[in-house]
Every structure is written in structure tokens, then in C-alpha cells.
């Protein structure tokens, strides 16, 4: 091996200078009486700065790039050999910024996957490969007073799949009714940072699936609905039957530009509602959504439209 590039670091701040050296081995048989080295940054030649002979007889040629302005630079060391240039070595230099602190961290407890799903915004591009890790304490500990102070030695790392800005913490790592501190760490070659800590109780951010809504056909036993009225029935999402909820109904004529009319709150014990004030011979779209209540929770999405 005739020549080898030495880099102080393979990653530098974008805009900073970089000094590198090319070490020419004394046993390189291709050397002429005077060794000439040409540096290239990408395809452009870059004047070398100085040369010195080292104790072991090898020669060190140094170059300084005053300002790295591109996130990825190929630095090559060539030997002038007769009328040609021979590439001895090539090094890839990455330039970027330390990671920005992730922000807008939010979480939802999903009872379908039985996991706490958290998402965040990564912040401006650092131009460097950056690893994001969602972090939270492993266990609730007696005496921790249920606040969000975390013991550093019991931290669970949730590593998102490549390039994703969300991660799911499985049920077995959760205490659904206790405060938990949660944050996101961002790390690249130039540094580590973390988001502000979120302090939450998983069940208090539970998001239910929408209820099932249907219209009850008139039945002989019951009194027929009033003119302009509809008898509706709904059923909360089955896996959430143990959760007290409130729901709300919205309806709008299918044709025309009328906005949604909202009806609520409808408590989850009632399951039936007579909707009145409807226009005759008019097709309506109806939707319903529910949330955990009176305990905190997130509204479900609206149910698929029931068209009547």
C-alpha cells in the first residue's frame, strides 16, 4: 500500500475547516526522485499545504479544506506518476450539524394493539445519520410517588423502525394508570440531545375505536317515531365496554352545503336516541364518535357515515 489518508475525524460541522494528511510509505516502489501528491475534493483539485518526512521514512502530505460546504465530500490523494495521476486512497467526509431537539412529542394509548404509540417531530435536518430513541422508565417503583421523576438506571429504549418518527411501547412495559415520564433522544456523530419530557398516564390518552351506529326500524311494540324523527341505536366499540364513555352524534343532509349538526353528549349507558328536527324526504349522513368520560381520554375518529 503506497498511500493512506489520515482524517482527524470522519464527521465535521458543516462550514468548518478540515485538515487531512496522506502518508506515503517508504517502501512504495513507484516513487520517483521527488514525490508529487495531488489532492482532489470531489473532482476539483485542492492545493496541498505542506509536506514533511516522518521518522519511519514515510512522507506526510497535508491539505486543509477551509470550509466544508457539502454534507458529503470525497477526498482523494493522487500520486503524480509519469504523465498520469494514480489514486492512492480516498476518504469520505461527512459534514452536518448536531441533532436538533425533537419536539411536539405526543402519545395515544391504542387498545387494539394494546400499546402506547408516541410520535414526534425530528426538527431540522442535521445532514447526518441520526438515531432517535423513545425513552421511558421501565418500572413503577413503590415510593416513587407516581410522579415523572425517572431513575436513570431503569430506562426502556423504544427504537423506531428506520426513518420513522413514531414508536410503540407494548402493554407489558406499561402501568396503564400511573404517571410515566417519556422523552425522545436524538443522537448523531456530532452530539446527543433530547426532547422535553412528557408526563402522562397511558389510560388518560386512550383513543377508542368509533362506535357502531344504526337506525332502528319501526317496531310494532314501540310507538312509531314522531314525524321528522329517527330512532338511532349505537354500540360502543366492544373492547372498550369496560370504559365509561360519552359520545356525540353529527348529521348533515347529503345534498347541499349544509354543515354538520352536532348532538351530544350522549352517555354510553343509553345506547339509543331519537333524533328529531330532520327535513322530510331528505337523505342524511350520520356519524358518531366517543371518548372515555368522566375520566380523561381522546375522542375516537368519527364512525363511518350512516346514510338514511
Amino acid at each position, binding site marked *: 500500500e503506497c498511500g493512506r489518508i489520515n482524517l482527524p475525524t470522519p464527521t465535521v460541522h458543516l462550514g468548518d475547516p478540515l485538515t487531512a494528511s496522506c502518508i506515503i510509505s517508504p517502501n512504495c516502489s513507484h516513487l520517483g526522485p521527488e514525490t508529487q501528491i495531488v489532492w482532489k475534493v470531489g473532482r476539483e483539485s485542492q492545493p496541498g499545504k505542506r509536506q514533511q518526512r516522518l521518522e519511519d521514512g514515510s512522507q506526510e502530505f497535508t491539505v486543509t479544506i477551509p470550509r466544508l460546504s457539502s454534507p458529503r465530500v470525497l477526498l482523494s490523494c493522487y500520486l503524480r506518476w509519469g504523465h498520469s495521476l494514480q489514486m492512492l486512497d480516498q476518504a469520505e467526509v461527512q459534514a452536518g450539524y448536531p441533532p436538533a431537539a425533537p419536539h411536539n412529542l405526543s402519545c395515544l394509548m391504542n387498545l387494539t394493539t*394494546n400499546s402506547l404509540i408516541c410520535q414526534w417531530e425530528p426538527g431540522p435536518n442535521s445532514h447526518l445519520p441520526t438515531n432517535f430513541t423513545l425513552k421511558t422508565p421501565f418500572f*413503577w417503583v*413503590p*415510593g416513587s*410517588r*407516581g410522579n415523572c421523576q425517572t431513575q436513570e438506571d431503569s430506562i426502556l429504549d423504544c427504537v423506531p423502525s428506520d426513518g420513522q418518527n413514531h414508536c410503540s411501547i407494548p*402493554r*407489558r412495559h406499561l*402501568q*396503564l*394508570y*400511573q404517571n410515566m415520564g417519556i422523552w425522545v433522544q436524538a443522537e448523531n456523530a456530532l452530539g446527543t440531545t433530547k426532547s422535553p419530557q412528557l408526563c402522562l398516564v397511558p*389510560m388518560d390518552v386512550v383513543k377508542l375505536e368509533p362506535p357502531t351506529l344504526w337506525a332502528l326500524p319501526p317496531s310494532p311494540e314501540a310507538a312509531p317515531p314522531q314525524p321528522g324523527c329517527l330512532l338511532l341505536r349505537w354500540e360502543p366499540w366492544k373492547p372498550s*365496554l*369496560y*370504559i*365509561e364513555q360519552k359520545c356525540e352524534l353529527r348529521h348533515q343532509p347529503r345534498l347541499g352545503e349544509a354543515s354538520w349538526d352536532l348532538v351530544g353528549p350522549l352517555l354510553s349507558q343509553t345506547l339509543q336516541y331519537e333524533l328529531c328536527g330532520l327535513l322530510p324526504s331528505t337523505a342524511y349522513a350520520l356519524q358518531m364518535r366517543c371518548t372515555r368520560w*368522566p*375520566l380523561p381520554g381522546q375522542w375516537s375518529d368519527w364512525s363511518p357515515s350512516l346514510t338514511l
Partner: protein
Amino acid sequence: TGPLPQSFLLKCLEQMRKVQADGTALQETLCATHQLCHPEELVLLGHALGIPQPPLSSCSSQALQLMGCLRQLHSGLFLYQGLLQALAGISPELAPTLDTLQLDTTDFAINIWQQMEDLGMAPAVPPTQGTMPAFTSAFQRRAGGVLVASNLQSFLELAYRALRHFAKP
């Protein structure tokens, strides 16, 4: 309701309904897959295995006493946490249901303990699990599962009535 926050009681009632639903799921699966549908047919086996039933005397209507009821509720849940853990390896079909039941029971015990701490009535030293029954065969684990689930349901029924009483505004 005295010193207990309404939100705590509402959470307890919610957790109870969840644990009861988990327990029902375990019982239904044991009945469907192994024809183990009647805990009353397993009473002798229960005695032989030494499956304990925790007291809830302070939660009974005759001697309703809030702090005592909380302590007994926590101790009972803690015991059931251990019993459910002892049933590990019950069977591949039942394992997910058993895991969910055990996680939810543990969460419920923690919620009670946290509240006892907040009220300054938690013992200085957290409880430690006593000796658990040794389920030495697949059948014993399944039969033990029926008994533990059935006992847990009765335990929660009584506790539910007590907490509903405390939850009345």
C-alpha cells in the same frame, strides 16, 4: 366519600371491569378448549393445591371500613398477581389471556398502592409474595386457572360493591 378522590374511584371501577372482563375471557377459553367449565367441581383439588382466598372483610357491607378495605384490596390483588404468575406455562392458547389478566391485575394493585402512598397509609416496606401453590402438571395449571379466575371474580364483585359505595358523590 371521605379522603378518596373521585378520579381514583372511577379508575378503580374501570380497572375492576377490565380485570373481570379478562377473567371471564380466561374462564371462557378454559371451558371451550378444555371443558373446564365448573369451578364447583374443583373444590377438592383447590384444597389439595392450597389455593388461598384473600380476606375482604373490611369491604363487606356489614363492616365497611375504607382504609381497611383498601389495604385488603391491595393485599388480595398482590396475592392474585402471584397466583397468576404461578400459572405461567398454562398453555399456548391461554398464555395471551393470562398475560393480560396478570398485567391488568398488577396495574390495579399498583394503582391502589399509589393511592395508599398518597394517603400516607402505605406500609413502609412493600409486600413480598408468599409461597405459591406448586402446579405440577398441565391439568393442575388449567384447573388452578379456573379456580383462581373464579375466586378473583368473586373477590372483585365484593370489592366493586364497596368501591361503588365509596364513589357515590
